[in-house]
């Protein structure tokens, strides 16, 4: 019980529940399973992106280029689909993951081999990737009528009552949680965030692990590139503009510490869902859409303050009587 109360994810889940209950008072239809599933589906892409970002942040880095990576792979896959509509979608998805992973590897190499701070690297590649969207497309949009039906419909199909898009999120979340809790690589992401020096002593290659984190976030961005384009059925330079900070915000709300080493798959998912619920709940209870931005800003600040309270290191423990209660 005590453990539970200390658990960030628990409190976040409670906060989300509170929002849902409050909204349901005003508007009973909100809590209907179908509506909640819709919110889940709407938030799927953000959830996956937040998971990718979480891994990077865990390693004391940040990836500001995720949205631009998404836009670039999205534009590429849309153009490929428009040009070769007969290419099977699984091939396209694999291509997206590869291209996204490659773009992430570019970030990762600069961080690993040259030791450039991740924020500078990804600030640079953010503008480069976005510029490339314009260059490869010549500035033209790819519209719904240019995309094949398979391309658009895949994520809209249902399986066991859930849209395929939701399944993508569920599978990615499942794989990520296995990766993060059950594999040496996943634990290495945590270890280098908690204590990079000690990680060297346990045989972890810090640079290489960071590199892999960027590859992972890139690959997820690439996958989301396809999902985003086929969801909103338009590929343009502006796709997901400014979304990089929303992704970081989801992580922050989900209790991922920007200083590295702290954060869980469940937390990142809940952070994304929180943003999804807030964005979805406001129009429903008749709050003017103009309030959305301020409310999510306040939510971020609140989350940061609360998480910091939980994280505050109490220093070293020297007095024996103080041991264990810190």
């Amino acid at each position, binding site marked *: 019980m005590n453990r539970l109360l200390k658990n960030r994810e628990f409190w976040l889940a409670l906060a989300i529940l509170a929002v849902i209950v409050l909204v349901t008072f005003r508007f009973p239809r909100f809590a209907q399973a179908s509506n909640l599933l819709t919110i889940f589906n709407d938030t799927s892409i953000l959830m996956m992106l937040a998971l990718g970002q979480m891994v990077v942040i865990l390693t004391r880095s940040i990836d500001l280029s995720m949205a631009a990576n998404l836009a670039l792979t999205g534009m590429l896959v849309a153009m490929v689909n428009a040009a070769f509509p007969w290419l099977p979608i699984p091939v396209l998805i694999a291509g997206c993951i590869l291209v996204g992973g490659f773009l992430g590897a570019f970030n990762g190499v600069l961080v690993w081999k040259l030791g*450039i701070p991740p924020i500078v690297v990804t*600030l640079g590649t953010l503008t*480069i990737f*976005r510029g490339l969207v*314009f*260059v490869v497309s010549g500035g033209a949009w790819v519209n719904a009528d240019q995309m094949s039906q398979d391309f658009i419909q895949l994520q809209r199909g249902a399986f066991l009552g859930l849209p395929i898009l939701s399944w993508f999120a569920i599978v990615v979340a499942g794989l990520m949680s296995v990766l993060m809790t059950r594999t040496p690589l996943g634990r290495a992401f945590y270890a280098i965030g908690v204590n990079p020096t000690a990680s060297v002593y346990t045989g972890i290659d810090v640079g290489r692990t960071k590199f892999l984190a960027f590859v992972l976030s890139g690959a997820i961005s690439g996958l989301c590139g396809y999902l985003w384009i086929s969801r909103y059925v338009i590929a343009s330079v502006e796709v997901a503009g400014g979304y990089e900070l929303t992704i970081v915000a989801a992580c922050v709300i989900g209790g991922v510490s920007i200083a590295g080493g702290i954060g869980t798959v469940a937390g990142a998912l809940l952070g994304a869902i929180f943003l999804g619920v807030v964005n979805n709940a406001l129009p429903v209870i008749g709050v003017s859409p103009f309030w959305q931005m301020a409310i999510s800003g306040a939510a*971020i*600040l609140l989350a*940061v303050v609360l998480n910091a309270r939980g994280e505050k290191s109490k220093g070293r423990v020297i007095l024996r009587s103080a041991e264990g209660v810190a």
Partner: protein
Amino acid sequence: MTETSLHRRLPDRLDNPLKSGLLSWEMLLVLVAVAIFVANSFASPYFLNAWSLSDLTFNFTEKALIALAMALLIIAGEIDLSVASIIALASTLMGLALQFGADTPVLVAIGVGVGIACGAFNGFLVTGLKLPSIVVTIGTMSLFRGIAFIILGDQSYKGYPASFAWFGQGYVWWVISFELVLFAIFAVIYWVLLHRTNFGRRVFAIGNNPVAAQFSGVRVDRIKFVLFCLTGLMSGVAAVLLTARLGSTRPSIAQGFELDAITMVVLGGVSILGGAGSILGVVLAALIIGLVTFGLGLLNVPGIVMSIFTGALLIVVIALPILWTMMRERRA
């Protein structure tokens, strides 16, 4: 110590400051700027024209004003992503005051005052509650602009008095705009502040090693707080200029300015890890970005293509010295 010990005299410095100045980062930026200037003159017949050059400055002065204060903040090891949102809020509140009949001095006071208040809010969250600045300002970035949206919704404020519009559109002399003059003045002020005062010295110390700075009796939190206020102040000034230049206020004003300002700072040679950088570098970087954008604009190349160039410049410029030392070490 004892009378017997013979002291060697320690010289102030060994190398000639002039020589190291010539090999500096700023010198490199000057060369880049000159090269772009020359290239532009050849590429477009319209470039070498007093009015063209004057118009050019409007494209970057507001961002560069923010970059000046942001440079100090980043040197001290913090960052502020909310600057563009501060502009939106300050502009909105100026517009609101205008509806109640405020005149130009009041409008300016409100713009600048709101800027400082927003900066102080950021500063309090970072230094008072010990929160990381990057996440704090991601939050206030939504909050400040969000408040502007709540106030203004889908409306806009316009009808600013002509005396106010002068700040963003007026010329002090011939082609020299007020914005440019103001930027020059602030650049000098910030140069003095950073490179010639105790305050600036402490900012560098904090950025280099915040722990050791605190252990040396530097009031780290107080200085960081002041830096956030200064960044807010400059955002407020930028809000006045931009509002005056646009002659109207929308909550979506100045979207994306924060990353442009940070890019200028980093390109100007300020270390994102803190502790190093110069105002001259930031001014030159602003100029370079302005020149490149405008030069490509004259050729009707879309601005986004130029962003590839800036992004690459950002990485290359930081990677080069690292590669250089790596190669030297390998040879050794």
